[in-house]
Structures are given as C-alpha cells and as structure tokens.
C-alpha cells in the first residue's frame, strides 16, 4: 500500500515538476508546482512527519504559492513566456549529469550504519509534540532567528512592493487621483 502510494506520488510529482520546468505557460507552471507540493506533503504524511506535511500545505501551498499567484497578476503573463535558448542541449547535459550522479550516489548502498539519532522522538508523543519539544529546546535560538527573519522579510516585502500604500485609491474621487505614471 505504502509502496504503491510512494510510486504513485513519485511519478506524479516528477511529472508535475517537469511540467513546471518545461512549460511555456506560467499558469500551467504554477498550477503543477502547487499540485506537486501538495503531493510532497502527502509523502511527508507517509513518512510520519505529519506536522511538516501540514506546514508544507499551509505555508507552501497556502501562502507561498498563493503569493506567487498574486504576484503573477502584476505582470502580463496571459501570453506564453518566450525564452531564447542558445544551447538547449547544454542545459539537459548539466541537469542530466547531476541527476545521474545523484542517483548513482544514492543508489549505492549507504554507509550509514554508524548513524545514530541525535534527537529521537520522545516516546509516546505525537509528531507535533515531539517536534515542539525539539524545536523549543535545542532549536530555540534558530527558531527565534527564523521568526525575526520572517518579520524582516515581511517588512521588506511591504516596503518594496507597497510604496504609496497609504494612498487609498478607491477612497478618492477620480479627478484628484495622483498621476500614477509619474509616481511609478
């Protein structure tokens, strides 16, 4: 059952991501990427990382990709993306080469006998509880740093994209609207 699910997901994810990478249509690319991410969260559930799966769903699928979609509306992307490629074979040589080496590397038996768990899950705790225990003890500092980073990024995003946001265009009469061309 799990084997079947893994292969199903693997094939689907690979296909979807290939569409993302190869498609000329931004909408296809975005849709397939979002779908692939949902399926990856499925893999996380299979792996028992429930919390990670949900975070993947909420943050990646629900927020990150939605922001991408929102940003897409700023650009004229209804047409196909035209990209000039000088040496298409080079790209696939590189990608294929790396894929090949990685696969060979991972397909070889892993010398991982000596690996032991640094933070094994607490017995009897559910995944979110175990994650919380580790996250708020050992990884508290990185966690706080990450939160500060997110705050900074949020402010940066607002400042970068949202200049002149204090002017509410919908609350104004049309003839006193500022000349947006000039301000842009």
């Amino acid at each position, binding site marked *: 059952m799990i084997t079947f699910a893994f292969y199903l997901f693997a094939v689907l994810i690979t296909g979807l991501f290939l569409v993302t990478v190869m498609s000329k249509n931004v909408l296809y690319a975005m849709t397939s990427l979002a779908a692939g991410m949902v399926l990856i969260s499925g893999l996380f559930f299979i792996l028992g990382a429930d919390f990670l799966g949900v975070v993947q769903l909420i943050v990646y699928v629900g927020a990150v990709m939605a922001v991408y979609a929102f940003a897409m509306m700023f650009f004229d992307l209804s047409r196909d993306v035209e990209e000039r490629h000088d040496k298409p074979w080079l790209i696939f040589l*590189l990608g294929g080469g*790396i894929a090949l*080496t990685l696969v060979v*590397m991972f397909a*070889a038996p892993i*010398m991982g006998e000596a690996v032991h768990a640094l933070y094994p899950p607490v017995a009897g705790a559910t995944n979110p509880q175990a994650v919380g225990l580790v996250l708020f003890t050992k990884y508290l500092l990185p966690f706080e740093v990450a939160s500060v980073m997110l705050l900074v990024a949020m402010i940066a995003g607002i400042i970068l994209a949202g200049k002149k946001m204090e002017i509410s265009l919908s609350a104004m009469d049309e003839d006193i609207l500022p000349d947006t061309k000039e301000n842009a």
Partner: protein
Amino acid sequence: MENYVYIALFAPLAGSLFAALFSQRPKALVTGVVTSTLLFISFVASVILLNHVHHEGAVHVTLMDWISAGDMSIPFGFNIDQVTAVMMTVVTLVSTVVHVYSNGYMDHDKSFNRFFSYLSAFVFSMMVLVMSDNFLGLFIGWEGVGVCSWLLIGFWYHKADVTRDVNPSISPSWAANEAFIMNRIADLGMLVGIFLIYWNIGSLQYADVFAAVPSMNHGMLVTIGIFLFIGAMGKSAQFPLHTWLADAMEGPTPVSALIHAATMVTAGVYLVIRANPLYSAIPEVSYFIAVLGTFVAIFAASMALVNRDLKRIIAYSTLSQLGYMFAAAGLGAYWVALFHLAAHAFFKALLFLGAGNVMHAMDDELDIFKMGGLKKAMRWTYLYMGLASLALAGIWPLAGFFSKDTILEAAFNEHTYGIWLVLWFTAGLTAFYSFRQVFLTFAGDERYKPLGFHPHEVQKYVLWALSPLAILAVIFGWFKEPFMEFVTQFLPAYEMSEHTEHNVVILTVVTTAIALGGIIFAWMRYYKGLKRDEKVEQSLPYRILLNQYYIPILYERVFSKPYAALSKVFWEDVDQQVVDATVDGIASVIQESGDSSRKIQTGNLSDYLKLMSGGALVLVALVLFAAMQN
C-alpha cells in the same frame, strides 16, 4: 630573590622606555637622571644577587612560557649563577658609570634623550643575554645588543660620507652597517649552532644541553662548537671578522667604552665560558680558539703600535685583550678568562672614558700627533688614563697584572710555549702602545696650541663618576683568590701544575720585565715630544700596519666590490630581465586573460547560473568519485 632578578633585568628597560617617550623632544636632563638612577638600582640589585649567589647558590626564575609549539617548549627563564652574577655586576657597574658620564659627555647633543633610550635598551639586551637560562634567550639578547650597537654606532647618522683617506671608516652609518652585517654573518653561524643543538638534544636549556654533552657524538659536538664559536667570533670581533670593531669607534665615546670595550664584545667570551662543558669535550676546537685568540692578540697589538687615532688605539687594544681572553678560555682556564674579562672591563672603560674627556677637550680631535702636553689642563684625566694604561700593561699591583699574568701562566702550564711566547711578546707591545698613546697625549710639547685648541677639564661629577672604575682598576686584582673561589663553584677549577708553580716567580718577573721594557721604550721615544721619522713611516711594515694589513681594502676588493658587481649583474640581468619580465608577463597574461574572459561576464544571470551548475556538476561528480574510492 626573584624580585631582585626582575629589578635588575627590567630597570634598564623601564629607563629606556621612559627616555624613548622624550625621544623627539629637545634635551631633557630628566631622561639622563632617570636612566642613570634606574641603572644604579639595577646595579644594586645585581650586587645583592651576587651576594645571594655567593652564599646561597644559583637562583633560577621562570617569568612565563615563551614558546610552546608541539614538542618545543622554551620558557622565558633566567638563571643567576656565579658567572651570570659576575657578568651582571660588571655590566651594570660599567653601565651606571657610563650613564652618569654620558650626562656630561652628551650635554650639548640635540639627541640627548634618544641616546639614553638606546643606551638603556642596550643594557637591557645585555642583561637578557647574560641572564637567560637557555640558548634562545641568549640569542635574543645577542641580537638585541647587536641592534643597539648598530643604533649607537650610527648615532650620528647625519654625518656625511668621506673617503677612506680622510676617515678609515668613512662615516658612522657606514660603520654601523659594517658592524651589523659582520655580526649577521657570524650570527648565522650561531643560529646554525643553536638549531643543531635543538635538533640533536631537543632542548635549548643550558642544563639539559650540557647534561647531554657527554653522551653525544664527538663529530656533532665539534660542529656545534665551531658554529657557536663563529657567532662568538663575530660578536667579539675575532679575526677575520674584526674590522668592524675599529670602525665602530665612530660612535659616541661612552658607547665605545660600554659596548665596544667592556660589555658587548665580551659576549663571545661569555658564550665560550658559558658553554665550557661543551668546549671541554672538544679539545681540538678549544685549542683552535686559543691559537686564534693568541693570533688576534698580537695581530691587533701590532696595528695599535702605529695608529694615530686615540680611540682606534684603544679599540685595537681591546681586540688584543679579547684575544687574551679567548686564549685563556681556549686553554681551559675559564675562570681566568672571566677574571680578565671583568678586570679588562674596568680599566678599558676607564681608558675609553678618559679618551672621551680628551676628545671633549680637543673638540673631537682624535689624532694624537696633534695633542701633547695635555697633562697641565687635564690632571685628573691624565691620572685616570695613566692608571688604566698601567693596569692594561700589567704592572704590579694593578688589576691587569694579576689577570694577564695568570693567562700567561696558564699558557705556560699547558706546555703551549708558542702561545706563551706570543702572548708574552704581545704584553710588551701592549705596554708600548698604551704608553705611546698616553705620552703623546699628555706629555711632551703642546702641539695643539698652533692648531687653536683650548683644552679644559670635564665637569667634576664626571670625574667622580669615573672614580669607581679607577679604584677597581687598581684594586680588582687583589681579589683574585676570592674571585677564583667564587666562580669555580660553577666553572671548572684550573689548577696550575707543580712545574708552573715552580716557575711562577720567573714567569712573573719575565712578564713584568717586558711590560716595563715597553713602557720605558715608549717613554724614551715619546715622553719628550713627538719626533717623526720619515724613513720609518715610509717603510713597508709601518704602512702595512697603519693600513691594518690592508684587510679592509682587501675585504672591499674581494667581497664588497665583487658583491656590488654581482648585485649589479643580478639587478640588470636577473632582476630586470627575468624577474621583472616574469612579473610583467604575469600581469600581462592576467590582463589578456581578463580581456578574453571578460566575455563570460555577459551580465545575463542565466549564463552565470549555467556556469554555477556546471561547477555543481563537477563537485557532485568529485564527491561520487571520492565515495567510490572508499
């Protein structure tokens, strides 16, 4: 006791740093007073330590860990044994006198403060040299005194270069460089010696090294002994590295007195004395040292016979006396060498400082042919220099008599009659040139008058400051027995054989006779006044001696000029043609490759990303390759 060690060591350093604060300021008497006072404190501490060592034995302190790298561990430690205590006392005593003297002598110099800074720094280095308990500390002090010597010889660096006819050493800065370079050559030998010691023994502590000597390969011991002695040869100006010492007289006279007579130049002798277990184990090298010392003794004395330069005569005399010390040390009479070292320090410093007084009176004129009859104007200086010269000549009951006589006895005792004979003859020469100088300077007709000099005696306190040296020059010899007992607690005792004891009276009489003969000959020749003999002065031996056996010219012809020519060749043919061309070539290759590789900088992120992923591919492939190797 530890505190006294630190006081003795660091008081000069404190003085030096204090004076250095004022180095760019106009003369401030406070620097001279403070450094002199600190030196005196150091002297007192040294005397206390001497007393302590005499009663309680050696003191050993470790200030801190200095070098700890791998197996190598060299503490910054000091060992005050009998030899060190003697050296410390001598050094600090002479230094104190010289400091006080310099207050008067450098009175009008605009770099007064800088001078005291250097002088005290020298004393600090010298203290490190003698107090260190390992070869590396000794080497640091060794280099420190070298640097200070360089600074002080070239103290009047602003003096212009002149030709060798006018001044044999051309200029102070030239002389300073000469001294420094010659010492570098010798120090290389010393460094090799130290490396060999560490390589073979694995430690540089004196105690460990000398403990290991008996178990070592004889050939290696000889090699180490020779290399260490090369260092000693440079510092103590032994042939053939002797030319710098006479030229070093370009420095201020207190410097000559302190560094180039009493202390630094004896560092080579100190090294040989310090390494006596090593040299005792290699008699052939010791014998070579003795022979070389003997040769230098007569070689330098011969040059002093004809020289007209007041300070150079004393410098050659110093050289000659260093030869005596090496002869004693080479013959195994280490305590005798040390005894002569100390006695020599007192009377030679006195002699130099007296010469400084004369120079002062004569407006820095050094040609003794232009002096004469100064005894009227400079009674006390005449007394001091006469005493010092008597001591140097070895007349009973002054210090030189005891020390030099003992060396001659030792030479006789070892059945090295050749050495004895040469040293004996040199004693006569010494007496002659010393009194030739004294008489030409102080007695006879007043030749300076037509030249317009108005000599005058120096300040009273300077004369008082010299009195300890004068007293010691007279009485130091009387302490021969206690001194021997004291230092032979550490150094090997040297017993005269019965045969020598039997002949000691004869030896003494013979030695005194030739010394007196030299004095009488000088008195006859020069007491009345200067009578120049053209025929003698034109004769070949005289000219050879006057030109220092043409060695400086030889060095210049054989080493300096070919070296300069070689340097020119290297500059024009190698440096410009090869090195510069290579560098320019590299630059142009880089520029051209930059020009051609500039095309990579398309400004297009996509191209960069392609390059990056190419690199990633290579890295991953490398990892895979490395993994497959396992």
